[in-house]
């Protein structure tokens, strides 16, 4: 379980808090959606989960984050990466290997897995995202959607218990979005906790999250059942979010 306890964080050199008194509990086997307008602190929240904050990003942090009872300040990002896998918005930032296979094996090698275990987990991760056939290709030769799935495989291969994904649908076509839905649903089925940061609510609705949190100015202004959150059209719209289509239709029918 990941427990975020009253966390306030301010980046070095910034005059405002990126997060203010944020408290959340995230469990395995569930999908969580974190939504909010640009600059609301969504990505900052993800960086807290795997210890990039406070280990890498400088700033003032109050409160604490516990991953399976371990304070993220007490463990290194490398140690936490076995528990929480963070998938970044831009996959290109991580690629440097000659082949897809090599790229996916980088994480398991870094955390010191056995060679046999590495082979097994790389194959599993590539099959999960449907890229096993492309394992000999260069990561740079892949399409945008394939790169995104490769970045997920790179993290999955380390067998984390939680998957934290930053804006997975940006720049993705509908086919790619569809395959991402399947991957995350399967991860949930395998007992992993999936935390998705997005402002694509239509896609998030299709994913069927168990809980959705709304962030604004670094504060969690709402959280709970996705149906309740998505049907509050006025609140979503004032926060710069477009509600899922079916909820807009329902609302119009009610008015009618």
């Amino acid at each position, binding site marked *: 379980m990941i427990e975020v306890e009253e966390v306030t964080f301010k980046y070095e050199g910034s005059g405002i808090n990126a997060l203010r008194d944020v408290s959340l509990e995230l469990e395995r086997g569930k999908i969580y959606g974190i939504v909010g307008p640009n600059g609301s602190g969504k990505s900052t929240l993800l960086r807290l989960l795997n210890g990039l904050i406070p280990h*890498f990003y400088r700033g003032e942090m109050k409160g604490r984050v516990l991953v399976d009872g371990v304070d993220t300040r007490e463990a290194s*990002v*490398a140690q936490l990466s076995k528990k929480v*896998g963070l998938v970044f918005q831009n996959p*290109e*930032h*991580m690629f440097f290997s000659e082949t897809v296979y090599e790229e996916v094996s980088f994480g398991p090698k870094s955390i010191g897995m056995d060679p046999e275990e590495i082979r097994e987990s790389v194959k599993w991760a590539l099959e999960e995202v449907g890229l096993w056939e492309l394992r000999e290709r260069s990561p740079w030769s892949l399409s945008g959607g394939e790169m995104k799935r490769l970045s997920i495989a790179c*993290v999955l291969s380390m067998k984390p218990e939680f998957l934290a994904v930053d804006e997975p649908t940006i720049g993705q076509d509908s086919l790619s979005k569809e395959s991402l839905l399947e991957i995350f649903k399967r991860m949930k089925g395998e007992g992993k906790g999936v935390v998705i940061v997005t402002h694509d609510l239509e896609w998030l609705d299709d994913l069927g999250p168990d809980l959705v949190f709304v962030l604004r100015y670094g504060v969690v202004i709402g959280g709970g059942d996705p149906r309740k959150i998505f049907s509050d059209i006025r609140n979503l719209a004032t926060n710069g979010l477009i509600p899922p289509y079916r909820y807009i239709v329902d609302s119009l029918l009610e008015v009618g």
Partner: protein
Amino acid sequence: MLDPMGMVEIFRTQVGETSYSKLNPLTKLILFASFIALPLISASLLMQIFSLMAQTPLIILSRSERRVKRSLKASLLFIVVLVVLNYLTTHSLEFSLAMVLRLVSMIIASAIFMTGTSPAEIGDLLTKLKVPLQITFSFVIALRFIPVLADDVVMIITSQVSRGYELERGSFLEKVRRLIPILIPMIIIAIRRGHQLAEALETKAFGATEKRSNYVVYDYGRGDWILLVYAIIVITVGLMVGTLTPQFQLLPFQY
């Protein structure tokens, strides 16, 4: 102690509304050149102390105290290496100290200039000084892309660290070798950005005419004249300090 991101910060232009940023770019360039030249007039400790002190008004005017502090903190490793190497070769602590202050003085001059001058201003200035457009533009683009690439490097490092990669492990050589997963994506991203920029410039008709027009007019205000006089005074005093007879110099040294 080694803070590569802090070192990148030295070159990150960031213009706020300060008395310094409102100056004519030519004044800023003259001030920058003066304070780079000043510590080079003489190697005496007195000269270095003078060049540091003389920059204080500019630090206040440009409100760059934080930037100066960060730049100096980032250069700490080089400062220490410089002191040690100088001491080992000259056996003179005074000389080593003077050389460090010379470096510090130049870092401060760069930090002030970069805090208060936008790449566009530097470009306009170079164009007015008849520097060929290709060179001016390349220089401006390089400056403008430093923060972009710096942000890319941060994202690359965080991506690799999140994959369990530890940069700070092993001997010095091992640490250098461990930079490969950072450098390769950085180079590829930089090349791609360069390519995209070239395409964007083509679509915006860059180089279509020999003579580009310019709509920005830089005035010469009272502040500019005051600071130009200040630069002349500082350089004059610096030349006088530099030509003092050895017995008047503070802690003179022998080559």
